[in-house]
């Protein structure tokens, strides 16, 4: 029987792994450290982890290849990717490759914790969904997926095209559930530019931490759902319709869509 641990952190920089150990350890989480992808894989052979945090640029194989290798070995623990090449492209690529989250280096303790919390919650929700699928608790719903005609960036934010050419942007039910009952919402202003893969809003979770929402689209905000900021709980009630965040005039929609997942594929 493999031992059950909380977090595996894979990074060739000792200062990073130490910091993760320290921050997460203070929260009572058990953390194992690997200095390379190979070392990480051998640890994974001996123990199960609820969450894996991996660097993108490593000496042996990079984070994306590591993700592929994990899936090949049928290890389905959620993976958070992090890198010093903290560009929007890397964020989009990471989420598109199946990482649950992307933390650009350098990050604060709270940013790390927020991502870790969401990751652990994500893992828990996956287990619930799996249990539901196997008929253990057929009446429970783990989360509501976005409507089929929507597109999503990772599992967190969604985009819906409107006839006018403007797109609506919001957050998924799953994301809201990973941060556990939103307490506050900070939105950008009308006229602001948003870029796919960079933050466009922050939601305060039940833990009091700020959770960044990465924009699924690049363009200019033409309308903000201002009433939502005053009543963030509405967000939870109807995340896909009344709970939209922005209307955005996209500047490169075709390009953005190529890096998003069609929600219709989630139902197969």
């Amino acid at each position: 029987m493999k031992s059950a641990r909380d977090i595996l952190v894979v990074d060739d920089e000792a200062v990073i792994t130490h910091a993760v150990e320290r921050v997460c350890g203070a929260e009572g989480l058990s953390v194992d450290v690997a200095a390379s992808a190979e070392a990480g894989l051998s640890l994974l052979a001996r123990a199960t982890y609820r969450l894996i945090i991996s660097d993108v640029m490593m000496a042996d194989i990079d984070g994306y290849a590591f993700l592929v290798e994990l899936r090949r070995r049928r290890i389905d623990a959620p993976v958070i990717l992090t890198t010093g090449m903290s560009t929007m492209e890397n964020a989009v690529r990471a989420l598109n490759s199946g990482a649950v989250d992307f933390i650009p280096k350098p990050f604060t303790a709270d940013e790390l914790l927020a991502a870790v919390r969401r990751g652990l919650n994500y893992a828990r929700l996956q287990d619930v969904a799996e249990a539901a699928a196997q008929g253990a608790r057929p009446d429970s719903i783990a989360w509501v997926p976005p409507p089929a005609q929507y597109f999503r960036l990772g599992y967190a934010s969604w985009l819906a095209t409107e006839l006018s050419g403007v797109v609506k942007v919001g957050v998924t039910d799953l994301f809201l559930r990973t941060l556990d009952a939103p307490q506050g919402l900070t939105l950008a202003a009308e006229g602001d530019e948003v870029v796919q893969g960079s933050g466009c809003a922050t939601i305060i979770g039940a833990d009091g931490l700020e959770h960044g929402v990465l924009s699924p689209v690049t363009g200019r905000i033409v309308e903000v759902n201002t009433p939502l900021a005053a009543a963030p709980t509405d967000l939870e009630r109807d995340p896909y319709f009344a709970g939209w965040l922005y209307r955005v005039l996209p500047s490169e929609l075709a390009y953005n869509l190529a890096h998003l997942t069609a929600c219709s594929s989630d139902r197969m």
Partner: protein
Amino acid sequence: MKLFRTLGSKLTVAVGAIALVTIAIFAVFNSRSDNKNLLAEVERHANQLSEAVKSSTEFDMLLNQRERIHETIKRMGNQPSIQRIRILNKAGQVIYSSDTLEIGKSVDKNAEACTLCHSADKPLEKVEIKDRTRVFRIHPDSARTLGIINPIYNTRTCSSSACHAHPRSQKVLGVLDVTLPLDEVDKAIRQGQRDVAMLAVVAFIALTLILALLVRRWVALPVRRLVEATRHVAGGDLNYVIPEERSDELGMLARSFNNMTQRLSEARLQLVQSDKLASLGRLAAGVAHEINNPLTGVLTYSSFLQKRTKDQPEVQEDLKVIVRETIRCREIVKSLLDFARQSVPKKSQTAINDIIARAASVVENQLSLNRVKLVQALGADVPPVTVDANQLQQVFINLFVNASDAIGPDAGGGTITVTTSRLKLSPIGITQIKQAQCPKRHSLINAEVRIDGKPSIRVRVRAEGNEGFIYRDPMYGLARHQFGIAPEPGMDVQVTCPECSTALNVHGSPCPDCGAVTFQFEVPGKGFVEGCTNRACTWQRWAELEKRGDRDFVEILVRDSGAGIARDELPRIFEPFYSTKGQKGTGLGLAVIWGIIDNHNGSITVESEPGVGTTFIIRIPVEP
């Protein structure tokens, strides 16, 4: 000899020599003609004298008054301008002479005075005046003498006079021989020759001096300035300008030289910039990546500490500063990364006018604060371009904000004019081959050997036992290739990929210019480029590119009425961290703009005049 090294002295010496020869020939001919005329005059005078002697003695002869004849001849012969007068009879005996000692002596028929008529078997009777005169020297070192023979013919009066000295049958009775000294004449001739020679020398010297002066002024000085300028340019000073004050060919040369150096300077600027920015980009990416790791240590530990010491306000304050400043570092590194981003632009077909209008609406408020008016003169026929709309919008926003800053808040307003138009340019000489590969998809691009700052295209060449590389010029049409091996036409040449040795030869298709072996490589998605292996041949063909003909460009001008940029600052404005805004800007703006335009295969140049304004010229190809 140093004298003949300069163009001016060569020209002066050549023209001087020609003048010297001309003047000398003229002087010689002149002197000869003078000599001849003078002699002819003396001849005429001698003839007259001899006729005078003849006629003044004729009457005495008829009367046979010998004493009187003696007297007349003696007196006349003693005139200072006459050397001697004598009359010889037919037998050559001197009958009368101004030199009395001579009388009675015979003259040899072969003496020089007689040879004229007596050289033939039968003596001549009638002789032309020209032939009757002779010039001779009595002694080799004495002065010249002119002698004239005047035959005395038998007339009726002679044969019928009382003395009956002469029979009727005799035709010539004797000769009158007058000799005149030529020393005065010779003196005059010598004087004349001296004068002509003097004149010739003076003329030659004056001509040469004037010539040297003019050549120096019109040729030597401007040429020296040009040479000086080429030295400066060769030494790398492309800002050197020759004063353009003349309208002749050398003035035109100076103007086109200045024009050339200016173009060269602009081209070099672009090249240096691209090279520098590319390596700076790589450096920035590396540095950003390296710095972000230790920065993560600082940021996580300090923010973690901040979390855990909420009850210690004095520590909190300090930690807040550490966290805030570390986040500031994070933002700086992020902007570095934005600059360094080598990612392919997210291109889609877009109307450039829309992008400009959108950028304009973003900066509207900011511009109106400075009372800056943004005039959009957008061409109606501008074709859509395949660009990253976002990046270009960033370009225009940056340019507008920069322009507004250049106008400044104290100027009381100003104008930014943005103009778009369509432009057609030939692709030859301006298209850079950025990708080249062999049939097995190995890249042939070689960054180590650069031609004019751009990575070359390297192929391996084997010719008759020798092997080496040819580095092709990446600028299509310029053909500044570098040959590590120089095969001749007619040789058996193999061109291969340096990586996998796959043949690149185009078999059965010799170079249409020189007949040498040709080869080709692929520009992915853009067809094949063919080239010739002969070093002396510039033939190359990129059928796909040439088929397309002139390329369409969209040209965007952003002109402001701001403070302008000083000439010596112009070359630096596209460098990262170059800023004239002091603390206000990070200085990445124009460097990022440059990178974006370069990623679109476009070009950005700047023209500026301090106090008048600055114009940024952007050209973007319509087809990517």
